């Protein structure tokens, strides 16, 4: 006795047509799906978190004190910010840096500025 192989089932014509439509649809939609899923490049007005603009401002000054030509009724008090010390001899120098604020530490008691001079 010999076994006869089972006959393979064939899909119906209707099922094949449906399957072809589904495969074609997927092939058509897949590029759009990929584009949709991919991250979008940032644009200026896309409502993302606001960009921070950082301005770094640092003014660096080095004070050099020269010998005074004569005793005068004007003296200086250093107030440019940072650390500084009044010179103990007539020819010294000190370095300091300051922010844009006009206040800062000083080694001496500074008279509050009543007026200012800044050039014309």
């Amino acid at each position: 006795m010999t076994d006869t192989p089972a006959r393979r089932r064939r899909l119906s014509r209707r099922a094949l047509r449906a399957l072809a439509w589904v495969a074609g649809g997927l092939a058509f939609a897949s590029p759009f799906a990929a584009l949709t899923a991919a991250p979008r490049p940032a644009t200026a007005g896309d409502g993302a978190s606001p960009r921070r603009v950082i301005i770094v401002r640092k003014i660096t000054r080095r004070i050099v004190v020269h010998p005074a030509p004569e005793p005068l009724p004007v003296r200086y008090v250093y107030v440019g910010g940072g650390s500084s010390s009044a010179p103990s001899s007539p020819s010294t120098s000190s370095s300091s840096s300051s922010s844009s604020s006009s206040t800062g530490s000083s080694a001496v008691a500074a008279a509050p500025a009543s007026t200012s001079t800044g050039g014309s």
Partner: protein
Amino acid sequence: MRSPASASGHHTFRAMGTDVTLLADADDVDGFRSAAERVERIFVREELRFSRFRPESELSRVNARAGRTTSVSSGFATLVAFALEAARRTRGRFDPTVLDAVMAAGYDRDFDELLVGARGALRPPRPCGRWPEVTLHGGELRLPDGVGLDLGGVAKGWTVDLAADAAVRSGPRWAVVNAGGDLRIVGTPPSPGIGVAVEDPDDRETEILRLVLGSGALATSSTTRRAWGAGLHHLIDPSTGAPASSGVIQATTWAATCADAEVASKEALLEGERALDHLPAVLVTDDGCIATNLGAEVEVAA
């Protein structure tokens, strides 16, 4: 230290293209008010005399008559005599005859107009230095043909001196008149003196140094103020006729009077750091250095 502002009054007004402030002892309210009125009147009067932007000013009339002899007021003659003497003393570093060079560099109209971009074409600089040709005999002034006077800064300092003297004659025991950084103390201010902030030339809001001033006057000249472009500013080097570039961008000088301090600040700005050998000053250089020969206030904080 005591704050001198605690017993003082302020009065501010606009004149000579800048803010003018009277700071004075105000214990006598009527005296302070009278001082403020006198100071304002003096500025109005002297601006009308010395403004080069007003065609009706005495200065404009004199400049328009270059090459001819012109009768001038005693106030005008006094300041011209002072300016010519300052030119001699500084060997021409201070030069009252730089008008053509200032205009060639673009400062040919009121500075507020200049800031919004209105100005004529620049002209190549030519050396100045024709002040020895100016003749003044009594009230008769003659400018050489083609030469104009620019007394802007020194006229302001001169006016500050007149106003400060007049202020203390009105009642206050002491007074400071400050016209855009040119200031003078008259009388005896509260000990140890008046605090004066020296502004950073790159940022007016920043104080780089504070001075304690007991008497006399301070004036500051800066290449970063009244500037209208790269390398274009109102401080002319008479030897070249072009805007100065000595490496010093701001000079604050002390002198007994504000007119003298104004002349000294121009001289220091042109001479550079060597000016500290003979002028009491605070100089700011273009490499970020502050150089001074003033002594330090060494009182220690309590």
